[in-house]
């Protein structure tokens, strides 16, 4: 039972991580109608900034805060320099342009930080496992990830649904020209939204950095899973992204944890051991297929599009 709870926590934690990445992606896609493949690059940039700033300041929280601000600035700069040229164009142009950005960022990081990668070590107070129940130890840092993500989700909800800025963002998503005609600086608004999305990606990257390592191309594999999340959740819906992230995180983790044992019941030990990792990594795509068949618009379709 304790083992099951631990695996569920693993699933929730993975889901939260995915939400941080998917939220920015779905925000940019839903509001700006922009397919941003370079989202994974911003995730990587956030992680590199965090590793660098924490190294300079010798203070984990300060370094992380600086990295967030820096990623926000990079995101806004990317919007001004590159993304503005892409609005209103075909989605295929977005794909091409932002794929170019992936290559650009990978090479830039290689030039600035070298090919070897970095680490972001946790401070001692975070690098412990805490007893949640008798016999159930869980890494404190992973609990922090869950808490931070829930806070971010609440912040996004309040920002988009309850503030004047959020109202403008939603209005801009419905009708860009009309909002502009009413005297709102829509360009600035979009730059802000893109920067916010970038900061979310950077947050995901720097939160993940102490668990994984900081390396070139670290955002590319996880970006695909983030796309799966927003397709399942309904493109443009932050609520959908939240629910879908939890779904995907749980299915992936529970699949990895229990699927091999199930397979062992029907296959030989050897065959099960080899087949299980391959099959369990397919589960999230099967989930996506099922959702697309039953609800092609995703779980929480956005009605105003």
């Amino acid at each position, binding site marked *: 039972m*304790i*083992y099951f709870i*631990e*695996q569920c926590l*693993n699933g929730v*934690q*993975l889901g939260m991580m995915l939400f941080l990445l998917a939220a920015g992606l779905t925000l940019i*896609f839903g509001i700006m109608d922009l*397919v941003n*493949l370079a989202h*994974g690059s911003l995730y990587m940039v956030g992680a590199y900034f965090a590793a660098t700033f924490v190294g300079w300041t010798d203070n984990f929280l300060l370094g992380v805060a600086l990295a967030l601000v820096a990623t926000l600035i990079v995101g806004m700069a990317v919007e001004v320099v590159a993304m503005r040229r892409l609005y209103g164009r075909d*989605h*295929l142009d977005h*794909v091409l342009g932002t*794929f170019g950005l*992936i*290559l650009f960022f990978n*090479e830039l990081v*290689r030039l600035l930080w070298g*090919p*070897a*990668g*970095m*680490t972001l070590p*946790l401070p001692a107070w975070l*690098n*412990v*496992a805490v007893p949640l129940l008798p016999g159930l*130890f869980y*890494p404190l*840092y*992973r609990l922090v990830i869950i808490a931070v993500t829930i806070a971010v989700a609440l912040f996004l909800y309040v920002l988009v649904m309850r503030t004047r800025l959020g109202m403008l963002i939603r209005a801009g998503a419905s009708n860009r020209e009309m909002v502009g005609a009413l005297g709102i600086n829509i360009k600035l608004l979009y730059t802000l939204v893109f920067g916010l999305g970038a900061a979310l990606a950077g947050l995901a990257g720097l939160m993940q950095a*102490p*668990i*994984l*390592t900081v*390396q*070139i*191309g670290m955002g*590319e*594999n996880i*970006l*695909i899973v983030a*796309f799966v999340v927003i*397709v399942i959740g309904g*493109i443009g819906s932050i609520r959908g992204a939240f629910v879908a992230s939890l779904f995907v995180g749980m299915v992936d*983790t529970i699949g*990895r*944890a229990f699927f*091999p044992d199930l397979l062992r019941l029907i296959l030989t030990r050897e065959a099960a*051991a*080899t087949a*299980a*990792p*391959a099959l369990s*990594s397919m589960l999230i795509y099967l989930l996506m297929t099922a959702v*697309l068949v039953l609800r*092609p*618009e995703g779980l929480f*379709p956005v009605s105003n599009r």
Partner: protein
Amino acid sequence: MEQARSLRLMLAAAGGALALGGFLALPPGTAVAQQKAIKIGFISTFSGPTAVIGNDMRNSFELALDHLGRKMAGLPVEVIYEDDQQKPEVGKQKTDKLIESDKVDFIVGYIWSNVLLASLKSAVDAKTFLITSNAGPSQLAGELCSPYVFSTSWQNDQTPQAMGLYMNQKGVKTVFLIGPNYAAGRDMLAGVASTFKGQVIGQELTKWPDQLDFSAELSKARAAKPDAIFVFYPGAAGVQFLTQYTQAGLKGQIPLYTAFTIDETTLPRQKDLALGVPGAQQWVNDLPNEQNKRFVADYIKKHTGSRPSFYGAQSYDAGHLINSAVVAVKGDTAKKEDMRKAMVNADFKSVRGNFKYGNNHMPIQNFYLQDVVKDQDGNFVLKTVATIVENDQDRFHDKCPMK
């Protein structure tokens, strides 16, 4: 309609990113067109997170050429480096290119067993000598052994076998095995199980190379309550595994035994996480022979701030093995049978100390226990603690038809 189109586009885009994600600028080959030169193709990973291993192999191979005066039997040497991107299909493509269009005399390198297995047939069919300076899949030692293939490393099972013996010495009764799901990962786990006398109470293979979060596997290992965990994660994955193992609070609870998880390419990032975690290896940087002292000292001199790893040591040896063959035929690389006979003798000074070749062209060699220590400058370095097994021959040589 718009929505459905967007979805399709995005999926296509995501797929495109997956397919092309590994695309990065390739390091240029050091090709200098010359009439009579010894041509060597070198395949390793020069892009992506494991490029650091490929760089170490290239640095060491270049150092071997420096030490040979950049000539073999009086002929200049031309090396063409190719990036396999850690993908079997790319590795095979590059192997074909080296054989068919560059017409190399030797192909060296291969970090990954799955890349080597995909590329092997091309080299064997073309009767081009292939020197694997890392990968050692069990198939290559057994039924797929070839007169044209030599190893300057080991067969995959051997190193974990040595670790299994060491776990017996330490009185470990139950073990949980974790490794990546590809040719080498499966060999490694089978290897440790073959010599370990206690009980293997669990085994997890993870998706390779893209699964980087091991929380589910670590939870499983903890729930199984073993005496020890054995793990094989080469390259950056080793850093990730060790980090997560420590964060999960397992470091004080269940001791870790490793193969190919801690080395000079990962230690700068593993740092104190690696202290007290034993590993086995056929080469350690402090082995007390003259050739090794020279290799390590000159490597550190040439590449300030980095230290050679076993990947490099094996590539350095590969350079000298090739030289022994070329010298034996006085540069006439058409005499393949004579070159093969020369290489079988392993007649060169290996940095691991001298070794013999078995019938399957796999080294018969010692394996050492290594530990991580801090040197006087505060750097983390590997150090030989003991010899676990002497003159060890891989367990597949009987299956090799060569006598």
